């Protein structure tokens, strides 16, 4: 049970993030929503990578009785998460710069009012 708690956290975070993206009207809050979903997915990947009793694959500082390579964990989920975090930063920066421009041209951050395209 205790090991499942991160998965529940993932579900709750995704729900919160999706709520913010779909129902919030402030563009910055939409951006925050996407960041929350992204954190949830990252948490999911990291949780998948946890193995009870596994050892980090760092050769120089291994405990004496570890079998190589069976006793070590394969660090793929961690690598995926790092990549995903880097991508997430780029997405967030791009979205925030769009928001700055939108504020300059529309004078508002309300998504109901930022709809010149729908005319």
């Amino acid at each position, binding site marked *: 049970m205790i090991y499942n708690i991160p998965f529940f956290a993932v579900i709750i975070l995704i729900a919160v993030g999706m709520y913010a993206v779909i129902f919030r009207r402030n563009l910055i809050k939409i951006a925050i929503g996407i960041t929350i979903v992204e954190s949830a997915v990252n948490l999911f990947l990291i949780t998948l990578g946890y193995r009870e009793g596994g050892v980090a694959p760092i050769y120089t500082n291994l405990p004496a009785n570890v079998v190589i390579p069976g006793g070590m964990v394969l660090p793929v989920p961690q690598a*995926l998460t790092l990549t995903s975090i880097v991508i997430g930063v780029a*997405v967030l920066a791009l979205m925030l710069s769009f928001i700055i421009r939108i504020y300059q041209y529309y004078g508002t951050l309300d998504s109901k009012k930022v709809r010149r395209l729908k005319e």
Partner: protein
Amino acid sequence: MNVDWLLTHSPALLIAIPLLAAFLTPVIDRINKKARDAFVIIVLIIAEIIMIALAWDVFTGSAHIYTMGASSPTATIPAQAAVPIRIVLEVDGMSAFMGLISTTVSLAAGFYSLAFVKKETGQGRYYALLLLMLVGMLGMEFTGDIFNLFVFLEVLSMASAALIAYRFYYGDAVEGAFKYCVVSSLGALMVLFAIGLLYGQYDLLNMAALAKVMKYTTLDRIALVLLIAAFAMKCGAVPMHMWTPDSYTVAPAPITAMLVAASQASLYALFRICFSLYGLTLDVTTVGIIIIALGLLSMFVGVTMALPQKDIKRLMSYHAVSQTGYMLLGVGVGLYLLGKPDFDTYGMAAMEGGIFHIINHALYKGLLFLTAGAIFYKVKTRNLNEMGGLAHSMKFTTIFFMIGALAIAGIPPFNGFASKLLIYESAYHVSPILSIIAMLVSIITLASFVKVFHSAFMGPPMENAEEGDVPKSMIIGMAILTVGIILFGLFPGWVVSNIVHPAAQALAAQAGYIGSVAGGA
């Protein structure tokens, strides 16, 4: 450096050359603007040439495998491991087919951009992002690794979003870009979540190795739903099409043509997931019907939304949604029949129709968006009611527009006819209603393009119109796509048997896809 060496390494080179060139472009821009233009065009031409050579080799021979960082490109499974760990690029018929589309459209867009963005600022970064879009598309199409697919999807999305907002001084451009950015990053996160689900069960990221052990558990189904939803959203299928008209309309015209190819890269990913990753383990009847339904909805809703539009690019964007429906219908019918005895008789023909339509659509829709851009370049408006009589001054653009419009409506001898006929004939066997709706949509498409032609090109010349056509480089860009349309329309038989059939075959034969990486199906 001989031809064999080039062919062996071409999958990696095709990604590496535009990627490195993308980051060199702003540097060259600092030194000399003309050199930068020449550099970008040369890189695009080199990519096109390598792509044609690689595609030819794949169509006549077998799939190319390239393992990143291995001692030999074909060593997919490392010596101490039982499964592929490294990133594997797998270029089979379908990948090569999509790669051809991406490089050709990028080349046309590159030429067109030379004149189109001449007066804008920040051109160095514009071309850098254009090359990154090409990298993203090629990467998505070549990769055999599902996480790598996600990375290239994000590369493509971010480059596209930034380019949609390129003319930020219009305000609405940024609005469209923000919408695109939100939709694509949510979609990409869904893909990543699905990748997590698959990795958690099988400890694998390689698509071929995953397909080999796929058991279609409940978690696999959830992953499938997430993947289909995300990629259907990215390719603009109804009911997830809201972003398409908004972002296509405001992007600069060459970028809109690129976005069409980018949507098709997502379409490719959707097909790859259904056919190669899941294949016969999934419930092909149900998933086939869902994809057919998505296709029918996209076709019909897209075209009916297009009819009342007054903005020329918005109208064309809705047509892009509608045409995506044809591809989903054709390949959906193929998926529906996969593994059934009828597959060899008309299921294959349906897939060939759907896949042939992908390249046709990229050519004529790209061309139509470029002509819309040429009109905008000339009269500075996208509103159909404010333009007229353009045929008097823009002779080339008028001809190009006519060819594109006839091709999209499926009039022989242009290419749209060939692929639509294949879809009509084969979908008829599944249910006559499918073909009837498809033909009806085709007729409405023609009607709406007659309207555009009439209001934009016919009538007395505009009072304040400048003399002459658009600059030469824009005409070259449009001509590249027009030549493709005419050639594909005149020799559909040759194209289908030599280019489209290997692509459809590569999608349908899952064992071949698995065998070439994981060894033995």
